[in-house]
């Protein structure tokens, strides 16, 4: 068979969308003033800035350990309370436990919560509680509902109905169905999702710290504000170590839960 000649017709369905994509990208870039010139300027500025930050100011390291620990505690408490609240919401949002009205209203609430960024919740809470760790913990707890509530509700709905019937057939009530039939069955998933959420909450607690929840995020914000770039660099290193560390820990634990059923 002779080699086929290039024909526009053959590639039309790839080329056309590509041209449209490029045109849209260029048009939007012009509208908001993002050009390649600015990008290269930015990269050089950024590198120069990083150069200025180096070396980190290790003398600030000891005094940053406490805020770092505070960030971890905020994330931990937020995850613990958030998981507990999420389980309650998940039970109300599962069609095999709650009546359809309750289920639908809870589902809608969970969906709405999921669409609100934690940072907005925090700003509202700071107005209510004032600055500090407390609004951070509450914001992260509420932030869990959107994700954990939905995931757990879906898992509860997949529980074998026979197990629920078993408890109902010996005269057990709803609470007994939940404690003996539902919770043992969802425990492995519950723990691994909670651990995953803990990873997310660590990152969020740093971010929330910068806008008023305290912790290492506040240290970073403060150092930048005071133009102490070497100090800020130390904070960055601590944050990276913290996030990386908890991620490995959570990965390790989740794997254990999955393969050995540990912790359940």
């Amino acid at each position, binding site marked *: 068979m002779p080699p086929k000649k290039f024909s526009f017709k053959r590639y039309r369905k790839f080329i056309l969308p590509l041209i449209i994509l490029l045109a849209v990208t260029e048009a939007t870039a012009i509208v908001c003033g993002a050009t390649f010139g600015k990008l290269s300027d930015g990269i050089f500025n950024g590198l120069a800035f990083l150069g200025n930050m180096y070396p980190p100011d290790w003398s600030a390291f000891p005094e940053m350990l406490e805020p770092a620990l505070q960030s971890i505690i905020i994330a931990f408490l937020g995850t613990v309370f958030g998981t507990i609240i999420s389980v309650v919401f998940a039970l109300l949002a599962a069609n095999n436990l709650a009546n359809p009205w309750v289920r639908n209203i809870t589902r809608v609430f969970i969906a709405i919560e999921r669409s609100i960024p934690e940072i907005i919740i925090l700003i509202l809470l700071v107005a209510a509680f004032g600055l500090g760790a407390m609004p951070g913990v509450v914001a992260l707890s509420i932030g869990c509902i959107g994700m954990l509530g939905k995931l757990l509700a879906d898992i509860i709905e997949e529980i074998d109905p026979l197990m629920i019937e078993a408890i109902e057939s010996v005269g057990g009530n709803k*609470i*007994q169905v939940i404690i003996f039939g539902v919770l043992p069955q969802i425990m492995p998933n519950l723990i691994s999702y909670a651990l995953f959420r803990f990873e997310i909450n660590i990152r969020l607690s740093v971010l929330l710290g910068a806008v008023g929840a305290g912790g290492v995020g506040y240290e970073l914000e403060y150092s930048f504000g005071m133009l102490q770039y070497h100090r800020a660099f130390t904070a960055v290193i601590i944050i990276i170590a913290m996030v990386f560390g908890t991620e490995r820990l959570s990965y390790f634990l989740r794997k254990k839960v999955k393969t050995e059923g540990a912790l359940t």
Partner: protein
Amino acid sequence: MIEVKNLTKSLPNGRKLLDGISFKVKKGEFVGILGPSGAGKTLTLRCLNGLLKPDSGSVIIKSENSQPLDICKIDKRELRRVRQKIGVIFQGYHLVKRLSALENVMIGRLGQISTWRSMFYGFTDAEAEEALKALDQVKMSQMAGMQTGSLSGGEMQRVSIARAIFQSPTLLLADEPISNLDPSNAKTIMKMIKPLSELMPVVGVFHQPEMTAKYCTRVIAIKEGKLIYDGDPKLSNKRLEEIYGEELELIEQQEHMIPVTAK
């Protein structure tokens, strides 16, 4: 004693699933319900413990020290109270897979303890011991600590019998308890259910006429929602044909797999 009177249930389109089923079961009896698939056997059984509400008719439970009660006419709360004393063995075992065998046996008494106690798994040592005894009765005590999800079908069914024993019911229902099991396991299960009929009436749905002939004291046959036979468990071939119709061939095949020694 349990008395079923005129049970009827129909689909919205008017098709009758149960059509005037009536029978009585006394203590000491082990009644097997037979019939082709879709005849309404399991439906009847589910009416007996209120998992299903019939359109009309009544299921009256009389025990020695309480008033006769019609479970088709009581509210949810009352129904929960009645169910505490009705043991059920299901075809699919109905065990919570991630709990241990012992914990599953304890579930049998959930209805009888307060909600507060159950929230903290608050069974007493005496109750745990009794649960272990129930497991011992079905020869499962050495596996008490194992997760039920890792047990075999026969073992799971034995755990569910232990659950029913521990529940100490006044009526025992069995919904195709041996349909998922191989012949030798099926025999073991039947041998374990049989002596329980001396303590309480036992009603079971079965697909194996040979088994009911051997272990039951009485057989009831349901076909197309109607009761067509009630009497001696040993059925003649003609009777079997009457009950099963075209399905008889399938049943006979099963019988070849289950060698029954005629006594």
